[in-house]
């Protein structure tokens, strides 16, 4: 069984009965290796469709958790259970819970980062004080607003106003947390929370794909929240220097907030400043200073992208279009037709009621695919993923990001057939599409007008 991957979270959804016999059958050695190789922040096993389980039934998944943690430091655990299942797992493992437990997938996703700028208000209660604090810290680091109930009565009182919270967490547990660096989006800035001593592990705990994707889709300001950093060694310094080089290529800025350098050689600071990195005492020194934000690139102003379409990208264009056409045809059971191909800046005549999705690819070649749809057409294209009669825009956007992810996967496999190895970034969606247009302004690319069932949409390939 393979996990479904979305928003940097891999989820296994076994069904039926989990016992000692079935458990091992769900996960072959190849499945475990493939999961460990995933560059995700979290690996979950959903118990939503499991009607029976015993300790032996969970064993194979727990072994997989251990391997995944060793390989990529991701958060691991079970989710989507009811109160009874929660108590059963606690009874099985008592004080030996090394993995996490999240009541729902949505609650689990609060503890990791995605591109969504959606800081949530979360009511939180756990009878164990250290658990309460750990959860609150993690939620805060991921950009949410945790409100802690200090005892059962306090929880009952606070939870009697459920509309005051986006989420209520009660039957969850934080095991060994992931060592991935927490990431959140604040306006047009990306904030990474780093802590303790920074060393060679930064290379594995920092999600470089996410960072590259952020650069590629136009983020210009990256802030390292370094209040809790004790110090760093030369490996970490080298890591940041490399980051500064790639940021310079995109005209982006890297800032550090709250780093005291008490236990770090001051020469390190000078090296980092020479590489273009900036240091501030307080987060608000940046986020509340609109002029500075604009100057640093956090105001969302676009700058000229110096990266041009190159010969290899253009020569592989048919593969990109084929991937898009094949997937749209698969999703809609209709024939997709290519109308016109032109090389120019992205051109959307009427931005009203349009939504868009983009996905980057990098490796032997790099670039970005953008799809722009009228809202109604996007809904049609996503019906297989979302079902019929759904008008919720968030759900449509969510499905559009899945759609571009599938297209990205197809591009990857079509290019692999030609011996070109690429990886794909996380998908991103835009509604309205102004930020996309701003980000892609003056980026030359190949624009293809496509139709399926007479409905038009736009494909744009750029670097």
């Amino acid at each position, binding site marked *: 069984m393979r996990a479904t991957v979305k928003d940097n979270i891999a989820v296994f959804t076994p069904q039926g*009965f989990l016992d000692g016999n079935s458990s091992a059958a769900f996960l*072959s050695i190849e499945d475990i290796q493939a999961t460990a190789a995933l560059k995700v922040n979290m690996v979950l096993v959903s118990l939503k469709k*499991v009607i029976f389980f015993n300790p032996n039934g969970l064993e194979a998944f727990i072994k997989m958790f251990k391997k995944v943690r060793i390989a990529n430091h991701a958060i691991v655990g079970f989710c989507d259970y009811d109160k009874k299942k929660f108590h059963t797992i606690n009874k099985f493992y008592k004080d030996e819970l090394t993995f996490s437990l999240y009541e729902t997938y949505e609650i689990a996703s609060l503890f990791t980062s995605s591109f969504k700028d959606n800081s949530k208000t979360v009511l939180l209660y756990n009878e164990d004080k250290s658990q309460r604090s750990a959860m609150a810290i993690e939620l805060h680091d991921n950009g949410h607003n945790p409100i802690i109930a200090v005892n059962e009565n306090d929880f009952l009182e606070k939870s009697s106003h459920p509309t005051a919270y986006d989420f209520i967490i009660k039957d969850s547990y934080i095991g060994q947390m992931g060592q991935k660096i927490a990431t959140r989006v604040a306006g047009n800035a990306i904030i990474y929370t780093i802590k303790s001593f920074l060393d060679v592990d930064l290379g594995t705990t920092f999600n470089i794909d996410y960072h590259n994707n952020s650069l590629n889709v136009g983020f210009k300001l990256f802030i390292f929240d370094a209040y809790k950093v004790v110090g760093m060694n030369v490996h970490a310094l080298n890591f940041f220097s490399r980051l500064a080089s790639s940021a310079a290529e995109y005209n982006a800025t890297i800032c550090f907030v709250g780093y005291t350098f008490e236990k770090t050689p001051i020469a390190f600071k000078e090296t980092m400043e020479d590489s273009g990195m900036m240091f501030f005492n307080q987060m608000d020194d940046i986020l509340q200073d609109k002029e500075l934000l604009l100057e640093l690139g956090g105001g969302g102003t676009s700058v000229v992208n110096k990266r041009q379409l190159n010969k290899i990208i253009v020569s592989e264009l048919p593969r990109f279009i084929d991937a898009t056409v094949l997937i749209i045809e698969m*999703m809609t059971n209709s024939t997709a037709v290519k109308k016109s191909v032109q090389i120019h800046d992205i051109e959307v005549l009427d931005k009203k009621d349009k939504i868009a999705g983009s996905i980057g690819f990098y490796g032997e070649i790099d670039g970005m695919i953008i799809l722009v749809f009228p809202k109604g057409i996007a809904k049609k294209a996503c019906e*297989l993923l979302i079902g019929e009669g759904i008008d919720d825009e968030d759900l449509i956007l969510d499905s559009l990001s899945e759609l571009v992810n599938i297209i990205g996967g197809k591009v990857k496999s079509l290019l692999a057939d030609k011996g070109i190895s690429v990886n794909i970034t996380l998908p991103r969606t835009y509604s309205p599409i102004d930020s996309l247009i701003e980000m892609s302004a003056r980026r030359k690319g190949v624009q293809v007008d496509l139709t399926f069932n007479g409905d038009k949409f736009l494909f744009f390939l750029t670097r």
Partner: protein
Amino acid sequence: MITKNKIDDYIERIPPAPKALKETLMFLNMGELTKAAKVAETDLALKTYLKNIVNKPIYGFRNEVSEISQIFGILGVAGSKQTVYNYMITLLSPKKWVLFKLNASGFHSLQDYLSIQWQKILTHLNIKDVDIQNAITLLPASIIITEALFNEKIQEVKLLRSVKSLDYNTILQRLCHVDLFDICEQIAQKWEMPNKISEILQASSGIKPSHDATINELGKWMHLLLFYELSKPQIIEAGLNDFIDFQIEYVEDIYEEFSTIIGIEK
């Protein structure tokens, strides 16, 4: 990916039930075991299937049974009909499985286990209706149909399922507005199987509860039994655990009773 035309074409290509099978079933319906056995003897494939099936350890016969009349005698009218129906379903199965890692023997085993466990459930529920006993035979047809419709689309389905946990039944329903259980029903009609079989099967999908309380209750038992069997290691390894969506809420109220009948250790 899969179109309504492809489904229609698939159903169109399913041949009518062979004459010998129809006659065997006719005599079994009349309770004429000897006459039924005589006709069954003329269909060599059916004869071989019956001999192979009943001599498996799961049936628990001490001595080898070789005569069809003997086999029908041991199985009785209901059991014989069930076995003949199981055979009819195997006529649909592919020579080579591609989508699922199955083979003829694995598929037959699944049929056997479903039939035997279904009988246990019906005994517990004190149901002796022959059509209800036979209803279980149509269920594995849904697996064969999935294999037939999706075997050329493995890569596409893989890509789709890598980002969204969608079962084959939902994919089919969303693309063609027809699901696996509707197709099973059409096959049942083509083969003139009693309506009750299709009704129970539709309820057993877990997403189309029947207005008839008895049929609905049987649908729940069948849905849960299917997932009990789909949780067996060899079936999981075949890739069948999530070929349709398990509707846990649908069966929750019968779970305790089910686990007692089947003997699940707590």
